[in-house]
């Protein structure tokens, strides 16, 4: 049952709109209830071939020999695609926005890094014939030591999962093996806190489990182009990823999608489109590549697991004075999107609370498992689990009601957040108050009277003195090319609204002007905005 609390924040809204705010029927409802909504798999093309991949049986192994002789002679086989057939067989998804290094082949070359990694693709007249050919592919593996635990993976001497990142950690800003967040002096505050609580949390991997599995149908179209029906969640991401991998201009493709049977983040990685298009190019026929359910569950990317350590300092009156967090994202064998999730996670610290001293280190770690990707709440869900369990424990520790404890520490308009931006448009306190009311959970009058719009800012708006890490300053990051054509970045630097911190952090390295060819970003994150 849903109740709209129009009474709250009413002064910030004009509720006299004609269409906005109405419970209008979904545009797609009629299609859904009549079964006429068109998903990628609902396109039936004449002479369609079926693509299946041979997946690694090993979690980490060198590929000594791949023998497809017998498979090539198998009935109904039209084409066997090997790694050498892929024009640019190395990519990383976020290379399109210039973040990270190419680290993942479409088909494994000399090594497999997770169980289920695609090695060879079979294109056959029927799925059955593709399966029969798969059974005839002989692969000679030389098993390599594996690592499945994120902390083990970071230890010296751990097996190297992905040679692009030889220390099994994504490299941030070309210098750090983790993303840092520094705000105030957490260690000093922990030393003076009444209570210190350090805990470990573990979020499991999660499979998106959309009812429609990942897939694509690619077919030669008129004028030398290819039409691609796809389940992608990100159409141009997929278009441009395919253009890069297949080394053709992006307008070679006409992608059609738009109605997708659930995604939850699991249909961003563009896993089926490049091979389906390549197969259509190599055979001149329509080709369908769709994941089976077991493939979707085990070899389609999950939300990566996260391990989180939190150390908090809290005073007897319930004020949290320091929060120190170390988090490890299990990216699996390749980067995909976990690199960004770690940054998003760092920005999320310390949760929706105003804590004067925050210290975060977030790692994106490589292990010999299915590469992880985005999923609903990416970078935040696990951290919220850890933080909110920790909050419950802290409330217990100081003998406070957990609702009141949240309100006491909640961020409010005008507060300085740990990523050094002013909090605005906050509403945590009101959510706690209303949830308490709905659940008939009594809270005291002073907490019922609290407001996100009151008592913020002032001393809470100050960026506290922040000691620099002992480590020496790194050199300027190396620039990478972007695969998009862009206008030169307009560097707009507004003066910070708040007074600068007493010990300002060294400013980020500025890039050199673009010297040739495609425009460059000012850093891996692009044009700076203050």
């Amino acid at each position, binding site marked *: 049952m849903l109740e709209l609390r129009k009474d709250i924040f009413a002064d910030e809204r004009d509720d006299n709109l004609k269409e*906005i705010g109405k419970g209008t029927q979904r545009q797609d409802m009629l299609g859904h209830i009549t079964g006429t909504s068109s998903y990628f798999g609902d396109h039936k093309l004449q002479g369609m071939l079926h693509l299946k991949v041979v997946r690694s049986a090993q979690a980490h192994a060198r590929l000594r020999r791949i023998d497809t002789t017998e498979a090539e002679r198998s009935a109904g086989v039209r084409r066997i695609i090997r790694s050498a057939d892929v024009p640019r067989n190395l990519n990383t998804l976020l290379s399109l926005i210039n973040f990270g290094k190419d680290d993942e082949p479409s088909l494994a070359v000399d090594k497999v890094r997770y169980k289920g990694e695609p090695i060879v693709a079979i294109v056959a007249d029927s799925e059955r014939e593709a399966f029969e050919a798969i059974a005839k592919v002989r692969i000679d593996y030389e098993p390599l030591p594996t690592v499945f635990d994120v902390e083990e993976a970071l230890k010296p001497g751990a097996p190297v999962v992905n040679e692009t990142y030889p220390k099994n950690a994504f490299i941030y800003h070309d210098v750090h093996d983790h993303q840092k967040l520094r705000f105030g002096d957490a260690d000093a505050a922990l030393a003076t806190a009444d209570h210190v609580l350090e805990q470990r949390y573990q979020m*499991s991997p999660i499979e998106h489990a959309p009812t429609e599995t990942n897939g694509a149908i690619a077919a030669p179209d008129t004028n030398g182009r290819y039409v691609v029906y796809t389940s992608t969640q990100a159409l141009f991401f997929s278009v441009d990823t395919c253009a890069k991998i297949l080394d053709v201009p992006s307008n070679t493709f006409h992608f059609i999608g738009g109605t997708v049977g659930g995604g939850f983040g699991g249909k961003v990685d563009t896993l089926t489109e490049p091979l389906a298009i390549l197969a259509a190019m190599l055979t001149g026929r329509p080709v369908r590549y769709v994941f089976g359910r077991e493939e979707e569950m085990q070899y389609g990317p999950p939300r990566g697991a996260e391990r989180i350590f939190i150390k908090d300092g809290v005073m007897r009156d319930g004020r949290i004075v320091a929060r120190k967090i170390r988090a490890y994202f*299990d990216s699996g064998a390749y980067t995909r999107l976990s690199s960004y999730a770690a940054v*998003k996670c*760092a920005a999320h610290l310390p949760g929706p609370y105003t804590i004067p001293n925050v210290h975060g280190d977030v790692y994106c770690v490589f292990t010999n498992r299915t590469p992880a990707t985005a999923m609903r709440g990416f970078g935040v869900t696990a951290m919220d689990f850890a933080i909110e369990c920790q909050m419950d424990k802290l409330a217990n520790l100081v003998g406070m009601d957990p609702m009141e404890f949240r309100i006491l520490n909640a961020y409010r308009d005008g507060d300085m957040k740990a990523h050094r931006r002013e909090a605005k448009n906050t509403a945590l306190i*009101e959510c706690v108050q209303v949830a308490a009311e709905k659940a008939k959970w009594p809270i005291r009058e002073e907490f019922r009277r609290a407001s996100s719009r009151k008592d913020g800012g002032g001393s809470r708006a100050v960026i506290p003195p922040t000691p620099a890490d002992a480590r020496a300053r790194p050199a300027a990051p190396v620039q990478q090319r972007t695969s998009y054509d862009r206008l030169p970045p307009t560097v707009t630097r507004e003066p910070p609204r708040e007074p600068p911190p007493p010990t300002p*952090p060294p400013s980020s390295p500025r890039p050199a002007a673009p010297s040739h060819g495609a425009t460059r970003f000012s850093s891996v994150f692009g*044009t700076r905005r203050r």
Partner: protein
Amino acid sequence: MTRHRGRGMASVNYPIGMNLGGDPSQALVHSNPSGKFTVALSSIDLGQGMKSVTRQICAETLGVPVEDVYVDTADSDTGPHCMGSFASRGTHRVGNAVMAAAREARGVMMEAAAEELEVNAADLETDGRGNIHVKGAPHRSISTKDVAIAAQFKQGKTISGRGIFLVPLSDVDPETGEMSPATCYAHACLVAEVEVDDETGEVAMVRMDSAYELGRALNPRLVEQQLVGGAWMGVSHALYETPEPYYPDPAHGPRDFVEYLMPGPGDICPHDIAVLERPAPDGPFGGKGPGEMCANPVLPAVANAIFNAVGVRIDDLPITPEKVLRAIKSQGGARPQARR
């Protein structure tokens, strides 16, 4: 007594959109000669309601009935660029792009209407029912259809608009993490009540009460779909699902919907939801986006409720009966905490 009830809560916020590549989305809006509008997008509707919410945004901005707008999604030949449907960005980013495009189209439409009515465009307003009239003089009116016909066949104007929304990239400081990760945040607080069987470790959901603040609720029915379904997924993440049940040991991964555990229709519990609306200054009509965050408070709220019920802290997800039972046994039995 082997079954114990407990309540727990959690509160969260959630950033809307990504801080990558400017996170842009584009939209094109145009009218046909009958005054009906098409929104061309490359954005994807995964079920979240992208087509429907952008349709309402477009109709509101143009000042026409929602029935006069159709949203066409995800064709790379006709839809302009969009980063994609993820990061709770659809309503905010795509919605803003649609709003900008619709605003431009509305400008042309009003100019065309002004020419027909021989007035200044600034003196016109839409009635939301398909007519444009002179402010304060409803009888001096023209239908959007007649405007479209005039624009197309007489005036030589295209009633169309382009829109893009982009949040300039914010660099991340390598040493401090200073950045602008998002321009607005949604909020939530959720109370979960559970029942724990102290002999088997099984946890059953009893009820949930929640408050979600997500900017303006552009379509409350769509919001309800997201919040109810999202909280269900939160329960699933909390208690049931994972492709690696023995993580970090990769063994025994589920292969089908029997082995991959998700709450069934018999596992759901009543969920009372309050929606708060603090409009985002830069959101389309103040909208933020409920997509992802609605699952997030459920996980810790359930964990905290289990502690309240039997006194054990399970810090590893999912909270399987096995983990609960091991914890209860290692502390020598259930220790119910003060009832809340």
